């Protein structure tokens, strides 16, 4: 700990103690989260072992539980959200940081952030009652146009599907990626952009050739943070995804994610059921932590990179 010097007054010691205690509480809470989730899942861990992760049976009446279907659903819906949200979010970041006049930026920027402030339960409500009926109408069209790709199978639902879940997640993570990448683009030194423009490059060439490469690791970190949010979102997804049990490739069928399944069934009806739900939480926690650490590592890399440029 830095700043230690002789002659600290009692007030200094008390304040330092309080602050250090707060830090300790935070770190301990984090450890306690991991401990609770692991200890809660111990029954299921010993009964199902690691096979829990790749099997796909979910049959509470027979005390058979596994995570495979939900892991698939989580990854598919989040991947879809990321694929849609990353280009849209980065494009919004570009618009706000590099194109929009200051006055437009001051209005649009906060509005985009406001989209992130809409609670998931409201996005879910809207997704179920407004978006899903709309999706139900466009799914057959997408199926007949793109049906040769297994992802766009024949629609079987009322609009509640993995596809709708992915759209809802997209809406939730676009503002995250947009505001983070806007902040990144604002850090690109203007003289670097001038240098590129002075070589007879168009605005887009400057962005693609200079702005994006200089911020690449930061943009990816922002996207991974958005992905982390999508992976862990429970409520909005559970409202629109249809809570199906099977593993399949089509986006237009119902599915379920880890977070959504936990939210939907917690705390279960018997101890093993509860433990299986804790195990789902453990899987989600591991995926979430890995995602987050990757994002942290990437943004630290970006910070080191940006320091060189300045």
């Amino acid at each position, binding site marked *: 700990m830095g700043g230690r010097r002789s002659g600290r007054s009692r007030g200094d010691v008390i304040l330092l103690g309080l602050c250090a205690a707060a830090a300790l509480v935070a770190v301990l809470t984090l450890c306690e989260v991991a401990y609770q989730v692991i200890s809660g899942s111990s029954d299921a861990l010993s009964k199902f072992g690691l096979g829990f992760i790749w099997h796909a049976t979910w049959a509470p009446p027979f005390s058979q539980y596994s995570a495979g279907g939900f892991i698939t659903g989580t990854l598919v819906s989040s991947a879809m959200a990321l694929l849609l949200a990353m280009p849209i979010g980065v494009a919004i970041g570009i618009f706000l940081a590099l194109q929009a006049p200051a006055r437009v930026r001051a209005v649009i920027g906060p509005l985009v952030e406001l989209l992130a402030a809409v609670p998931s339960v409201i996005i879910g409500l809207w997704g179920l009652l407004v978006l899903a009926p709309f999706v139900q109408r466009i799914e057959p069209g997408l199926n007949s146009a793109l049906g040769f790709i297994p992802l766009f199978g024949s629609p079987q639902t009322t609009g509640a599907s993995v596809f709708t879940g992915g759209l809802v997640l997209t809406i939730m993570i676009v503002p995250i990626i947009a505001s983070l990448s806007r902040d990144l683009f604002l850090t690109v030194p203007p*003289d670097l952009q*001038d*240098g590129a423009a*002075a*070589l*007879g*490059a168009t605005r887009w060439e400057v962005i693609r050739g200079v702005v994006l490469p*200089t911020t690449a690791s930061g943009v990816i970190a922002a996207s991974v943070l958005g992905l982390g949010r999508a992976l862990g979102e429970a409520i909005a997804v559970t409202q629109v995804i249809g809570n199906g049990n099977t593993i399949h490739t089509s986006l237009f069928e119902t599915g379920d994610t880890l977070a959504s399944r936990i939210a939907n069934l917690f705390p279960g009806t018997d101890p093993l059921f509860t433990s299986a739900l804790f195990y789902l939480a453990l899987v989600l926690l591991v995926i979430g932590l890995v995602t987050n650490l990757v994002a942290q590592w990437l943004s630290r890399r970006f910070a080191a990179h940006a320091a060189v440029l300045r």
Partner: protein
Amino acid sequence: MTAADIDISREESGGDSGAPRRVRIQAPGSQPAAQGRGRQAAAPRHTVFEIRDVSINYGATRAVDQVTLNIYRHMATAIIGPSGCGKTTFLRCLNRMNDSIPGFSVAGQLLYHGHDLYGPRVNRVEVRRRIGMVFQKPNPFAKSIYDNVAWAPRNLGLKKGLDERVERALRDAALWDEVKDRLKSSALGLSGGQQQRLCIARAIAVEPDVVLLDEPASALDPIATAAIEDLIHDLKRRYTIVIVTHNMQQAARVADRTAFFSLDTSGPQRVGTLIEYDDTERIFTNPRDPRTRDYVTGRFG
């Protein structure tokens, strides 16, 4: 702008005697042929930039007032003056780098080979492709040395003979021998002076007509500065050079023509303006305007 005007401006010789502008103090007899730099003056001078009564404003603030001067082909023209006198602002106008600054506006006539630079159908990207610029602080891209130079030619579709083009640009920028073994390593690993020469290589790789240099050596040590100055001597054989510098010795060493800008404090606002423009030798040995004399002899600024 008529065709006749263009012809006149292109064939105009250096004296430019018939223009009784407020800031032009050049006398009719000052044809530079008799002087030491007669090499260029023997041939008729081609005017690249013909600048008439150009004023630059940021919003309601006037930054540069009523500048009139001609910049000639394959010469190095220096712009000197105390800080804040609008040298850089003026330079950045020559390839429209100021356009994106809010409130920027320019009045007067800025002709480039007879075409109005700020005319209605002018493409800014095209302007900058012909008129390159090197900045005060070296600003290499976070790419390899090779890609720094190859980036702009690639944009232009000059993909044939790209390796040769990169090598030629690096050679012309006197950097080739230092980097030829590490073309794929990051440009950010070069020293400041090397980075600045890389920026020059980058600028000439697209074979522009004019290269604008904005205090290119101000962030460099004396040895790197000397290297840049040597380079400018070589470059002006093929390119028209305009260099802004706060270093008078540098202007004296590299420039054929020198423009002295200063702050006009007579009005309500302090505003930059051109005091005197002439052959470099004349500016430094026998300036007409007392303000120029004070500046070059170090009594002011």
